[in-house]
């Protein structure tokens, strides 16, 4: 469903994403982990069509993103890490705006779908309020509604849990599992190893722009040569070190 072929992104001589190759099958929730600055968001943005790769190919649903961008984006939903949306629209107007972009405006079931999504994400009572009055978490949930509105085949998600309360986080995990069960492929970057362990069927770890490990949690365990949870595996693979216990600064 998703194929990244020799994908590279350079910024002024710096290889933010360095020749990565990755394949994700249909209906899988694929986690994308890595330390800060590893290249996760850059990769995600290239897949969403927000950034242009320096080299390589992105194939989604059998179509090359560079050659058929509109067709690929029509079957893709993107949830970014920061919920910047149009503040002067109401929640309902924003979803209708998204429906228009995906040419769903005259779809007979659109109004029902909008209402259903707003109810699902517990935003129905805020549907006629301007987005500028929404909290960060509410905006994040509204963006999720927007990403699911056109029933995408592929969902690309960058840090979905940021700003969500525990109830919201549980809701999102449940929705992702349901979508995957219905055949939607979900490619998700996250800092939360618990979420990755709980939800993701396959995981890729990126560091300094390169994929250093990929597979199921068991595969990664074998590769790392450690037992235990994903945190230990992750830290071993990325050679994470605990901070030395620093002495407190003495006051003057």
């Amino acid at each position, binding site marked *: 469903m998703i194929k990244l072929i020799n994908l590279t992104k350079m910024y002024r001589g710096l290889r933010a994403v360095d020749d990565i190759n990755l394949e994700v099958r249909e209906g899988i929730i694929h986690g994308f982990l890595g330390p800060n600055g590893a290249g996760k968001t850059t990769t995600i943005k290239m897949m*969403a*069509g*927000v*950034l*242009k790769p320096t080299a390589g190919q992105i194939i989604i649903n059998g179509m090359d993103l560079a050659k058929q*961008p*509109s*067709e690929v*984006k*029509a079957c*893709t939903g*993107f949830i*970014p890490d*920061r919920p*910047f*949306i*149009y503040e*002067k*629209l*109401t929640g309902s*107007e924003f979803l*209708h*705006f*998204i*429906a*228009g*972009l*995906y*040419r*769903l*405006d*005259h779809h007979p079931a659109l109004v029902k779908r909008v209402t259903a999504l707003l109810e699902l994400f517990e935003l129905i009572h805020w549907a*006629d*309020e*301007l987005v*500028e*009055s929404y*909290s960060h978490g509410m905006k994040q949930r509204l963006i999720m509604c*927007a990403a699911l509105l056109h029933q995408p085949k592929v969902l690309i998600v960058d840090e979905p849990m940021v700003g969500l309360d525990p109830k919201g986080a549980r809701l999102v995990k449940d929705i992702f599992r349901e979508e995957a069960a219905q055949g939607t492929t979900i490619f998700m970057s996250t800092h939360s190893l618990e979420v990755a362990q709980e939800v993701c069927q396959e995981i890729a770890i990126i560091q300094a722009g390169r994929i250093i490990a990929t597979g199921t949690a068991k595969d990664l365990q074998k590769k790392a040569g450690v037992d235990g949870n994903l945190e230990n595996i992750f830290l071993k693979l990325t050679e994470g070190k605990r901070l030395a216990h620093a002495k407190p600064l003495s006051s003057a």
Partner: protein
Amino acid sequence: MVIVGFAFWGLMFLLSTRVLLYFQSVEVIGDLLAHHLLSMVFLTFFSLLIFSNIITALSNLYLSKDLETCHASPALLEEVFVSRSIYTVADSSWMVIVFGLPILMAYAYVYRPGPAYYADLIHMALAVIIIAAGLGIVFTMILVSLFPAQRTKDLIMLLSIFIIVGLYLMFRFLRPERLVDPDTFFSVTQYVSALKAPDSPYLPTYWITEMLWASLSKGQGETRLFYAVLMWSTASAVVVINIWVARAIYFTGFSKAQEAKRRRGGKKILDLFIHLFRRPLGDDLASIVEKEIRTFFRDNTQWSQLLLLGALVVVYLYNFSVLPLDMSPVRLEFLQNEIAFLNMGLAGFVLSAVSVRFIFPAVSSEGGAFWILQSSPLSVRRYLWGKYAFYVPAMLCLGEVLIIATNHLLDVTPFMMILSAITMFMAVFGIVAMGMGFGAIYPKFEYQNIAQVATGFGGLMYMIFSALFMGLIIVLEAGPVYIIFMAHVKGAPITPMEWLFIIPCFFMVLVIIAFAVYKPMKIGLEALSQYE
């Protein structure tokens, strides 16, 4: 930008010098005119400073994102307040200083005062700035203590626009140009009383005017000392009062400003209006247009600019209605049509000025939400041309209203009416395309206020190219228009040689317009497609 700034300074200085030299040549009342002008300049700048400080203080003291860090730090409330106030003063005053200095230097150039003038100017201007800032800041603090800061911002923006529009219209309808034509007054007494400045001895503007005038007219030193003490004691009092008021109400107001704004969108009227646009466009473009219209009318800082635009159009037309054409030694019919021809350039410039405020920021107005369009199936090409198609009809209406109405007021020949209407019709396509294109080449998605987008390098480039575009059209059409007009006046047919000149000129105009539509949009499209 620096060169343009200096050029503007030079122009302001030259114009001011010219006016003052003219006043000096007017016997008896020349100095009175100069004194009156100086008073008006200070009164205007003082008013602008107060408004500017009100708006800037609201942002710097209540809405700025780094204020949370400041108030959470161990710094005293007074320290935070004073530091932000100093920043407010600097932020809101620099433009008034930039615009005012050439005028005040022109006075120095014409009247050749001693060094005391410059010393007085510096310290008295500083005191005026402090007083204006103090008044603006204390007004803001009181307003915010009564209303939530977000609501206060909208109120102040709206109020400012209404007052500026009102002052602008009032100033124009007072017809100050009569002051340079004493023949319009029956007697000297009537004329002199018309010169009396709307000023009061209790205002700082009166003190600085009198003090500087004393230096300019080489007056007595005692007056200067009196006004200096008055000014600085008032400035000190204003600072102290500000700190007292800040201690009492500033933090309460800041705390209130953290409340989120909750407002429902007004739908029904906009729905009707939007329905008109949906049909000719596809779903995706119709959604973009709908979003633009809703956002525009729900953002007070955007739609209130229409008030300024309305005032601009009214004054523009009014200027033409009061042109003293009958006083010109040149033949009337020739003059009317010559003005109508040059008016095309002026109207084109007005449209460019409107475009830089509304069309140039059209791409940037997506703000941080631009990723939505980048990740959607809507192509950049369709997006940019779709927005272009949306703005063209509005600008066509404005352009044609300006041209046809002014030509009607000038009572021009049918040929000139048709020529200028058609020229403006076609030029609008180029002006809008350049606005969209340059806006896409120089997008600014991170902004505090959409009005900031037009004031950068991209906006300046657009205005320059737009002026060049209109200038080229005028130059190319000037020759053929002259030939056609003179043929009409003489009652003689246009010769074949003359047609050989006329046709290529008009053809070149078409080529330039087509180029002005195609090239900026093409470059803008490429730039936006590559945007990261």
